[in-house]
């Protein structure tokens, strides 16, 4: 097992995950680099990992969420962020949706990303997250409903 063949091929999937959390291309690239360097430092563990992609995505997600928190502290999203309580442009709506997904508890957040960004089937999601397909259906439904409810609330009542 070597870096070039076992780790590097996951770069684009890691990048999309990082980008969906940070919503910033440069930050996302840094996250993928940090993820791969961390994986490289832990190369002694590679042989004992049964799902390399899931392992890498977990590392990537943690690093990206830390980065997102730092970004949020620098640019807090408050009701008076744009002088009004309700989001009124696509970029702001996207930012809010992204934060709502980031706040979902695992594995709800992972399910939304794996399905809606990576286009994985229920079976593939079940394998990656070690769930049954029925659980995937139930959790995905719950995840999307939560996003919809919270997003509707913000749309109607503001933050």
């Amino acid at each position, binding site marked *: 097992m*070597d*870096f*070039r063949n076992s780790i*590097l091929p996951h*770069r*684009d999937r890691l*990048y*999309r995950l990082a*980008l*969906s959390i940070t919503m910033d*291309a440069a930050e996302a*690239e840094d996250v*993928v*680099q940090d993820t*791969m*360097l961390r994986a*490289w430092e832990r190369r002694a563990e590679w042989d004992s990992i049964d799902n390399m992609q899931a392992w890498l995505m977990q590392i990537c997600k943690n690093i990206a969420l830390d980065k997102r928190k730092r970004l949020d502290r620098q640019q807090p999203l408050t009701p008076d962020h744009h002088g009004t309580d309700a989001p009124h442009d*696509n*970029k702001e*709506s*996207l930012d809010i*949706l*992204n934060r709502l997904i980031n706040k979902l508890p695992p594995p709800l957040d992972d399910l939304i990303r794996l*399905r*809606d*960004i*990576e*286009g994985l*089937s229920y079976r593939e999601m079940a394998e990656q997250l070690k769930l049954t397909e029925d659980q995937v*259906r*139930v959790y*995905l*439904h*719950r995840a*999307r*409903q939560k*996003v*919809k409810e919270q*997003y509707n609330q913000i*749309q109607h009542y503001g933050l």
Partner: protein
Amino acid sequence: MMDYKYIEQLIDRYFDGETTLEEEQILRKFFAQEEIPEHLRQWQPLFLAEHKLSEAHLDASFDNRILALTGEQHVQARRISLSMRMRPLFKAAAFIAFAIVFGTAVEHAAGTASTYPDNTVMSEQDELNADETTPIDIKSAEATEGLADTVLANPTLTPLAQ
């Protein structure tokens, strides 16, 4: 006015977790259009973001950087400049110039050696003597070699480079 009932049903089924991958793709394509009816516009950022994110990827410069950082970088093809590419040509030109000058010098030496008084064919001993007794031509040959060295060291001095 267009009927958006199908799209509205798909959105409802999407949030209920009942859509197939193909149906979700239809939603993303629909929301990638510029003209979205007012009552559906609120969901555009979600599907548009999914559409854009699903196509995002890193390029080869990332690979080179991360492979260098992990010490797994393979030897990369060297970038060769125009002057580097032309170097063999300069060397060949220098060699030809050297050969011409040296050849002329040897020809000149041979011409001098053949001017024996009796104009007879030289014996082997005569040839050796002739070689030993032509200091001017030897100097000429040395000078030629010196010129060739200069030319080799400075390809820009070759006739081709001029």
